[in-house]
């Protein structure tokens, strides 16, 4: 359940925009979660709901966009996107693939209520 520590990091990161914009509260938080990031969206949502109590995000909605794998073959340059783990290049059969997307855990944007 390392989702809890990820959400704890998220709340640390939310302090800056709230302070900078002098916001009353946070209404929406949007994350990009790669399918290979090792974090489970459902568990992130549960952890978010536990953490948000008594914070400026108490009524906020957590939106999660899941990012598919995107790999490029280091041998032939062939690229492929998928929602499952890709280990072999469809074009040349090489297993030397570079992961270009699908491992990210990114706070994309925050929606704030301001005066």
């Amino acid at each position, binding site marked *: *359940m*390392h989702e*809890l*520590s*990820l959400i704890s*990091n*998220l709340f*640390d*990161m939310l302090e800056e*925009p709230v302070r900078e*914009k002098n*916001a*009353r509260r946070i*209404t929406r938080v949007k*994350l990009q979660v790669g399918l*290979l*990031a*090792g*974090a489970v969206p459902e568990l992130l949502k549960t952890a978010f709901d536990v953490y948000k109590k008594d914070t400026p995000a108490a009524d906020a909605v957590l939106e999660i966009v899941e990012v598919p794998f995107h790999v490029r073959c280091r041998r032939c340059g062939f690229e492929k996107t998928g929602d499952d*783990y890709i*280990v*072999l290049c469809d074009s040349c059969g090489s*297993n*030397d693939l570079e992961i270009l997307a699908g491992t*990210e*855990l*990114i*706070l*994309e*944007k*925050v*929606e*704030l*209520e*301001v*005066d």
Partner: protein
Amino acid sequence: MKTKQVMVLKDLLGSNNKIADEIRSKLTDQGILTINLLSSPGAGKTTLLEALSGSLRPKFSMAVIEGDIETERDADRIRAKGIPAWQIQTGGACHLDARMIGRLFPEIPADLDFLFIENVGNLVCPAGFDLGESLRFVLLSTPEGDDKPKKYPKAFTTSDLMVISKVDLAPMLPFDIEQARREALEINPRLQVFTTSARTGDGIPALSDYLIAELERLRRGHA
């Protein structure tokens, strides 16, 4: 009252990764090779460290950071060998993070050769957290089964080296060493694979030679 959209686009692990990079740069500047050990509980991380200490310590110094949810047991085992050890009790957290290592940093002797960090036994959560290590090892013990690399890919794709441990038990188990090696290399072609038995000492000299070569490489790079 109005709403405002603020684009952030920052990594949720950004603060961890920043601390990890600072730790890595300090440790490599000091010429210390740091290894983060991942595995399931009971795969033999502490026993491997005990065995490695026998072949490394005549010439090299080492220290160990132990991560466990509770108890001081692993650090006690390492200290019994005369090796400096620090126990981090995570109190429930399923992995170490860079901040926990950073807090110990002032206590780590600057003239050390090897610093081993034994992560909390778990093939899932520790894989996501950079601790500032130079190398990441994942242990797979033969009783666990040879199908683990693809079931827990992140631990194997983020590691530099896989140790297949407890190979002395392999003849009694339905564990195919070549199958485990093949499966791991399919998802991480750059993985180095070693087989060890801490009980018989099989494979321990080869692994310590590898570590010594990596230490020399790190020091040449920072000379």
